[in-house]
């Protein structure tokens, strides 16, 4: 029982990170029907930016809590803004020109940009995996703080994942549902020409969508760094595939679906890691993808409803 609960807790933490990345796929697909294959690399770029901020600040786990928290907040903001800007820029210089081209054109461009961004990653931090400073102590909240008699670990890094992710997810949902710009996004996703006739600047709205997706991926970059303590230039590939699968699972275009899909895949991955073997996890994740595409291609919550926040 304890092992199961432990596994689910690990899965939940990973699932939140996947969910943050999955949102970028689903937002962009919802509005321009593009599977943004470069999105995993946006996440990688975000984590590199976070690492740069933390190493530049020169803090480590021996520094006072306050100093570490300040640096973490700065790194989070820098990673989000940088990843958001890069995503916005790629759309501006590449995809926007292809808005009226056949769908395959932006898709292939996205694959191309994923290689470009990976190479920028190599140029920036080299090809080898890097240690991400463990600024969060591995303290087990259950035993060390609450003095519970248990073998289950719920650590500060796990708490951190949830404390940062949940508000971001709620904020994004609120934004898309309630703000003027969010409504413009939903309208554009449902009918681009009709949205333009309402006075919505469609290009600006699409840019905003890329920016938001990038912000979430950047946050995932920092969170994952502090949780798993390792980054590498091609980390976006597998994370991207997981997140894409999560988005398809939840019904691509559907925000709530992407989050639930991410959490589900996190749990499935953790169960497979602990009850089978870790090398089986990718096979199981893709078996899930294949099953969904074969039996319920519109996903579990229905397709193309980025507007159904």
């Amino acid at each position, binding site marked *: 029982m304890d092992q199961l609960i432990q596994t689910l807790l690990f899965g939940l933490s990973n699932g939140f990170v996947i969910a943050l990345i999955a949102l970028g796929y689903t937002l962009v697909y919802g509005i321009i029907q593009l599977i943004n294959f470069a999105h995993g690399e946006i996440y990688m770029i975000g984590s590199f930016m976070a690492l740069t901020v933390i190493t530049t600040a020169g803090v480590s786990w021996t520094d006072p809590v306050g100093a570490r928290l300040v640096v973490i907040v700065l790194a989070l903001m820098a990673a989000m803004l940088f990843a958001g800007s890069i995503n916005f820029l790629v759309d501006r210089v590449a995809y926007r020109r292809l808005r009226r081209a056949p769908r395959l054109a932006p898709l292939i461009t996205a694959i191309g940009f994923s290689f470009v961004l990976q190479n920028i990653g190599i140029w920036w931090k080299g090809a080898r995996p890097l240690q991400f400073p463990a600024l969060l102590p591995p303290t087990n909240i259950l035993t060390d703080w609450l003095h519970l008699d248990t073998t289950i670990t719920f650590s500060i890094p796990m708490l951190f994942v949830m404390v940062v992710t949940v508000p971001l997810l709620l904020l994004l949902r609120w934004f898309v549902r309630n703000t*003027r710009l969010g*409504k*413009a996004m*939903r*309208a554009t996703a*449902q*009918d681009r*020409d*009709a*949205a*333009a*006739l*309402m*006075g*919505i*600047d*469609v290009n600006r709205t699409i840019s905003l969508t890329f920016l938001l997706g990038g912000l979430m991926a950047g946050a995932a970059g920092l969170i994952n760094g502090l949780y798993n303590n390792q980054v590498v230039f091609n980390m976006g590939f597998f994370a991207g595939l997981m997140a894409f699968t999560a988005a398809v699972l939840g019904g691509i275009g559907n925000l709530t679906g992407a989050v639930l899909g991410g959490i589900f895949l996190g749990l499935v991955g953790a169960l497979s890691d602990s009850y089978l073997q870790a090398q089986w996890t990718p096979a199981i994740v893709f078996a899930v993808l294949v099953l969904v595409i074969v039996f319920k291609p519109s996903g579990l919550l229905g397709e193309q*409803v980025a*507007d*159904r926040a």
Partner: protein
Amino acid sequence: MPILELNDVHAYYGHIHALKGVSLSVEEGEIVTLIGANGAGKSTTLRTISGLLRPRLGSIRFQGQRIDGLPPHRVAALRIGHAPEGRRVFPRMTVRENLEMGAFLQSDPAALRQGLERVFTLFPRLQERERQAAGTLSGGEQQMLAIGRALMSQPRILLLDEPSMGLAPTLVELIFDIIVDINRQGTAILLVEQNAHMALSIAHRGYVIQTGQIILSDTAEGLQRNELVRRAYLGEESALAG
């Protein structure tokens, strides 16, 4: 000065030359209809006015000011309302949200409230359906919503693309009565129709478009009497064939 004036407008879809020098005008307070067969270029004319399509040649003036080449959201900002062909409501937004989108450029909440009041007075049915997703409405209700949504921007001119399409005859009459009401409240109207009979019954003037060219222009009565219009657009060809 006409409120809207097209002068020798040419538009293309790739290599397809869809508008071959369209010229027409709408005066303040008028209902002008543009009639023509399927594929003649009626919708393309409206899409070009709204900026969804860029004319390659020619000029479009709104209250004397050139608007050709402006992106659609800038054209909408000049208060040119467009209820497009096929209604194009936002299916997964409620009726209320659709109407709010129509007032996207209205920052004044009082104007939004007045707009809603006006639309609900014209179309009480929409008020009954206020919280319902637009995609679940009937065809007639969606048409009411499309027109209502276009009215929310308090347009100076309203472009209507086949408002009668796919509707039962009694509904068509209802919609056309409301179009007349809207016009009496001071909005100029450019009405595109395949149902020439209905369109000419409410319009002041009309144009006939055929394969991207205006081939006739006259008062509504003149067009109703015109031999070619009677044969080709008012369904009297059977008399000839027989």
